[in-house]
């Protein structure tokens, strides 16, 4: 037997090391639709607990929205369950192209191509459009899927300090001999909740003849006055050359992603991007749901307005209580605890109080920067937020961190 004791012990040893390092990931089973209130089985086999979910990417509360569900049912009934094909063989329905056109319209770009996920969009786009004569210059905090995409591409890559425009400019000068320069960013950085300075980045791109790339997964649908994304917030609609985004967060929360931007770049992806060429077309049921989600957002800004109010209320409540928060104005609100163990203990105690929020620590965030990342939703009502605030304050008091400085928390709990 090739998979014998020797092979098995190699993996068992590695899994033990992950457990000992305290970074073993364990799933919690949700027995209800994704929403502000969910029924959770944790640990496996335990009785169900009704908790308030404050860590989903369900920013607009569309994951279980009745109109989205109805549209998905209609898509299932009229277009079937699956495509059993990649797009370019026999996997493209009229609604796939319709969604590409609607996304193009929504984001204010030239064209769009769908991918099975934004992870796939990021994995495929660089390799499709760049060669070894080009340079990719990324912010040092971009998402892991972008890092993977850059690794798959033959172009050279370099980084600049997070949000540091002077450093970016130096890098653009350093690589001015390259055929193409691409400046690569998240729109909203998912761990810190801050926003890329796209207005300044576009100016630098124009000055140094560079292409701009933004992953707007944590923005599309709710950042900017009408929810178009960080390019709307920064006043640069039409000036970002490549936007990747997901339908797995605010835009219905199911799955799927896209590359949207300059028409030649989109066409290059259609010809060369491997995750597009070699994986199935998005299922019709999801396409139908996303189309409805976009229609709802185009019809009214009510949901993104409510999300903005919720985020503002939540941030003020935590701040007034004496927690240290990462600065920002997005629905991602990281509560800083600095110590990895404390972040895990804090999360466990919150759960006991009926609040579902997860602690993040190294290597997901930098050493000594452990935190509880909270994410707001338009699906939250004020009573959800008040109950969650009450729980945070109770647990914060238990660990005596309210009103304490970073230095004081680190002195007590360590890095």
């Amino acid at each position, binding site marked *: 037997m090739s998979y014998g004791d020797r092979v098995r012990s190699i993996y068992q040893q590695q899994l033990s090391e992950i457990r000992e390092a305290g970074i073993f990931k364990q799933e919690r089973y949700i027995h209800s639709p994704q929403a502000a209130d969910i029924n959770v089985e944790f640990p496996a086999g335990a009785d169900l607990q009704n908790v308030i979910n404050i860590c989903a990417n369900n920013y607009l509360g569309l994951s279980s929205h009745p109109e989205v569900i109805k549209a998905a049912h209609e898509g299932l009934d009229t277009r079937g369950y699956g495509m059993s094909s990649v797009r370019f063989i026999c996997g493209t329905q009229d609604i796939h192209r319709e969604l590409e056109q609607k996304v193009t319209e929504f984001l204010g770009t030239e064209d769009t191509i769908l991918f099975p996920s934004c992870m796939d969009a990021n994995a495929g786009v660089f390799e499709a459009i760049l060669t070894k004569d080009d340079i990719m210059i990324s912010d*040092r905090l971009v998402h892991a899927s972008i890092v993977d995409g850059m690794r798959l591409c033959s172009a050279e890559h*370099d980084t600049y300090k997070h949000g540091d425009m002077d450093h970016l400019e130096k890098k653009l000068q*350093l690589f001015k001999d390259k055929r193409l320069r691409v400046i690569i960013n998240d729109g909203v950085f998912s761990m810190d909740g801050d926003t890329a300075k796209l207005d300044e980045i576009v100016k630098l791109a124009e000055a140094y003849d560079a292409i701009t790339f933004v992953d707007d997964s944590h923005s599309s649908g709710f950042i900017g006055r009408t929810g178009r994304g960080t390019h709307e917030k920064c006043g640069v609609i039409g000036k970002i050359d490549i936007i990747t985004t997901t339908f797995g967060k605010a835009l219905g929360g199911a799955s799927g992603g896209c590359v949207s931007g300059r028409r030649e770049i989109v066409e290059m992806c259609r010809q060369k991007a491997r995750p597009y060429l070699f994986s199935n077309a998005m299922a019709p049921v999801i396409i139908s749901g996303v189309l409805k989600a976009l229609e709802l957002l185009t019809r009214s800004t009510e949901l993104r307005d409510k999300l903005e109010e919720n985020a503002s209320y939540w941030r003020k409540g935590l701040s007034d209580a004496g927690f240290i928060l990462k600065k920002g104005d997005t629905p991602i609100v990281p509560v800083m605890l600095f110590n990895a163990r404390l972040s895990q203990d804090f999360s466990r105690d919150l759960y006991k109080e009926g609040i579902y929020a997860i602690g993040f620590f190294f290597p997901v965030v930098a050493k000594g920067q452990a935190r509880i990342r909270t994410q707001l939703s338009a699906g939250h009502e004020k009573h959800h937020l008040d109950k969650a605030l009450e729980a945070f304050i109770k647990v914060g008091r238990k660990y005596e961190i309210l009103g304490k400085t970073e230095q004081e928390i680190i002195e007590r709990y360590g890095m």
Partner: protein
Amino acid sequence: MDELKDAILKYVIEEYAGEDDKITYDSALISSGLVDSFSMVSLKRFLEVKYKISIPDEDASPEAFDSVTKIADLVKRFTS
């Protein structure tokens, strides 16, 4: 040699170090995660421009760039 190491150390600190990072000639750079492998390209380019050398890609390994001392040895090899 110290002049060479100092110049490299200064660049590494300015380019990569955070407020709390204490970097010496022998601090691990790549293997410690302080310098990610993506950022090696600008370090290599800095060395090539400043010391008027050309470092072949096969010599620009993460191991060869893992400390200021090792980088200085690499530069010396291509300047001598």
